């Protein structure tokens, strides 16, 4: 397969304003290299990411969805990320039961100072999604 037709995963990332988005910014200003496959959406808190926002891209054919939040205990709104964590656990169970590939949804705690961790997370996730191959929903007209 030539370089131009190789599968390039598309990852949608919902990043919390206070930690992970700032961490992504730090990765940029530090000139760290990471794959350009990620489309970042800034949210005020990871707990503001209703599962519908994760499901919509997943059912439309995005290859991966990343949710980034502050480390537990560091939430700008005190406890938002603890709720994110429970919601993520519920979502994983629902995806597993309903036959949607739960490995396509990642939750990661990345602080404002962890630019390196952001870059390596995106690198790892893009590699993992390449491994999984294209999301079958991309071709599914009947969803």
């Amino acid at each position, binding site marked *: 397969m030539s370089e131009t037709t190789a599968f390039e995963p598309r990852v949608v990332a919902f990043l919390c304003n206070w930690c992970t988005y700032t961490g992504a910014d730090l990765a940029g200003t530090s000139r760290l290299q990471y794959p350009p496959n990620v489309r970042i959406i800034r949210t005020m808190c990871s707990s503001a990411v209703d599962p519908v926002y994760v499901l919509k891209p997943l059912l439309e054919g995005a290859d991966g969805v990343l949710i980034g939040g502050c480390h537990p205990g560091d939430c700008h709104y005190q406890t938002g990320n603890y709720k994110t964590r429970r919601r993520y656990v519920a979502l994983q169970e*629902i995806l597993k039961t309903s036959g949607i590939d739960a490995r396509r949804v990642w939750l990661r705690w990345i602080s404002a100072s962890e630019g390196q961790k952001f870059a390596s997370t995106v690198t790892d996730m893009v590699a993992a999604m390449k491994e999984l191959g294209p999301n079958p929903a991309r*071709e599914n007209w009947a969803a």
Partner: protein
Amino acid sequence: MKTVIPVNDKDVLKATRSFLRSLVDRGVVEAMYVPLEMEGGAVLPALVTDPAMLEKANPLAPVMPINGARAVSALTGKHTPGKLGAVLRPCEIRALIELVKLQQANLEGLTLIGVDCAGTFEVSDFTARRKAGSLDWTGYLGGLQSGTAAVDGLPLRAACQMCATPFAENSAVHLELLGSDLAAGIPLTVTDEVGAQLGLAEVARGEGATAALAPSLEARRQTRTKEITAIRERMNAEGGLDELFASCIRCHNCMTACPICYCKTCLFKSASFDHAPDHYFNTARRKGATRLLSDTLLFHVTRMNHMSTSCVSCGMCTSACPSDIPVGAIFSAVGEQVQAAFAYTPGRDVAEALPLVTFRESEWTEVGEAK
């Protein structure tokens, strides 16, 4: 307090009605939410304030047009304007407890009158039989005794066939309809307060009635396991979810009938998914074709996310579905999995916090970190 409602001439319904009337006459309640018989066969739940209307009450009728938790939510809201009694089945009580936790109903000033339930029939089946005068009432009462309601071979609603929780727990007034010969008297458990108001005396009676039901409950548990396993397999097959919801016409009946889906401003009732024409063209160009109406799977999977922790398996969604999709079994399969993850049983205890509004700092510490 345990006692027995006396039954004369084997007329269980008449004895039930006069007991309900005594609740109003003795001032335990001022108004009662209870199913009433209509001319023409239907049985419809209503709010009754005139005790004479209780002559039409029939809480034994094996039919459940709506999940009563919705009605009690409407009647109690933030403040209940009078002493309300609500005659509810077990799955209605469980849904009500979830609605209380969701702040959509309140239990203050409410007397729960729980009726054990051997199962209900689809409204259309029930009404047609009753209208034709062919409803085998004695057969149904006999079915209550064995815990397997059956009327002339009519099948129960799918959710009822796999219900192993037919006892009306958490009620202040509990009519124990299952497992004993009701013609000899209706076993009743009431709180001491209500017992005193009604002037009831304790009547000693055996506890063996529920043991008699064990075999039929075990059979239902097996039916549930079988159904849920089959649904899980279908969902996990490639394209399984698409196939299950292939005949969905996105009428939202399942959501409307669901006692847990209370949101007045549901995302799916909004204009959020009324896309611009370009969107459909672009999606079709990308995929070769696109289903209309769009976002059908998104609707169902989002609903799973929003209400599966509280799903009480009442099956109103299946009954409401015009396309015969086993919505209830699907949601029960998902619900069971999610509820197990949080060790949560919906409708068990009003003091038990909803899984998604609470947390512990020490839990799932591995989540959010690379393995």
